[in-house]
């Protein structure tokens, strides 16, 4: 499995042609306590850069952008009742959506872990 990162602090972990997407622990820390996550509908088609979710903290709402082109195949329903999972386990149970990749080559343009750590240093 490969994990890549965007400049806007989304992570994408690929397994075959299905990718799981969320926001990084760094982003969750910056946002503070997450109180609500607005997720898209399953089946929605995204283009890279499209806003596909909104993360709400006590004070503000932040947009989340699609790191790649694809179709939403699953959303994390658990976040509805437990939005705090985003803070507790941003890269595990705090995942947002699963996307079926339309263009796997797009992953190469994203940062690897080392580059992302440098980006947030």
């Amino acid at each position: 499995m490969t994990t890549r990162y965007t400049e806007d602090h989304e992570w994408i972990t690929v397994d075959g042609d299905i990718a799981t997407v969320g926001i990084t622990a760094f982003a969750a820390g910056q946002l503070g306590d997450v109180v609500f996550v607005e997720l898209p509908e399953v089946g929605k088609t995204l283009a890279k850069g499209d806003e596909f979710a909104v993360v709400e903290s006590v004070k503000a709402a932040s947009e989340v952008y699609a790191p790649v082109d694809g179709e939403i195949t699953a959303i994390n329903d658990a976040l509805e009742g437990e939005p705090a999972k985003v803070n507790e386990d941003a890269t595990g149970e705090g995942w947002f959506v699963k996307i079926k990749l339309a263009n796997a080559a797009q992953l190469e343009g994203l940062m690897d872990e080392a580059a992302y750590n440098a980006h947030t240093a």
Partner: protein
Amino acid sequence: MTETLHKTPLHALHVELGGKMVPFAGYDMPVQYPLGIMGEHKHCREQAGLFDVSHMGQARYVGDEAALEALLTCDLSEIGAGEQKYTLLPNEGGGIRDDLMVSRPDGNGIYLVVNAATKDADFAHIEAATTGKGTLTRIPERALLALQGPAAKDVMARLCPQACKMVFMQCGVFTLDGVEVMMSRSGYTGEDGFEISIPEADADRIARLLLAQDEVAAIGLGARDSLRLEAGLCLYGHDMDENRTAVEASLIWALAKTRRERGDFPGADVIAKQIEEKTCQKRVGLTLTGAPAREGAEIADKSGNIIGIVTSGGFGPTVNGPVAMGYVNRDFMAPGTEVDILVRGKPRAATITKLPFVPANFYRG
């Protein structure tokens, strides 16, 4: 060239405590500490929180009180020694320049506390109107701390038992950690608590003494906002401004009856007309589920007609859900009325809710 942000006497302490510092009203202030907004908010309602509000404007007025009173909506003769009142600085159009506390903590004139963002304008306005009649002295060399929450009285019982004799909206001069301080039993969180004016040289030490008490945690501006919102308290610049009247804001109680009868404050004629005609919009509370509604979101009736606007909104940690305040056309002001709030372009079901969202815990004796 950017202007540098001001620092309160507790700035170094905020940084040391891990405060996330942000610009607010020209000051570098902590929006939260590592405990986080939710944790800080809950701690205040359950135990006691310590807030640095030194950025607010403290001042003293000595002289012809009628000249000062003319600018306010209170009746200064109703404020006795050791008493405090919440009042407004109105403008000629009936709108509000600021909301503030006025009090008589000692025998020396009137002590005022105004909002940080408006303090320069407020004090200039007061000075201009009272020239030759009284003297307004700004007090920037004192810090202002708020200790709020059900355990605040337990802390004060140990550190300054005399202060515990005060009930809500009383004030006075006390000795705290060997220092002469002014204190009132008031705050802006809906909880029992004390506001403490301290000479700046002693502020850091006293803040640390308070934080050393088991019950006390440092609270940032983020939780201060969620606390006052749950308490149904207006935030100047958001829930009220130069274009909103006390009638719309449901703050008629901040207009002394004697003043309304005399009609002798700026905008009194506008206020009287609004009270009589009963047609103006009214401030209400709103609750909804899912995504919070934020300031600026439009409020619509179920047919999609815009009937109001959200002026404060966010997540209420004690309510454990989104809460908001806003203004709606009178037809929709009754608690229980179902409306929609447009959040990111989509109508979300909301209910007009009686304020406060969380019952107040003021100590009345």
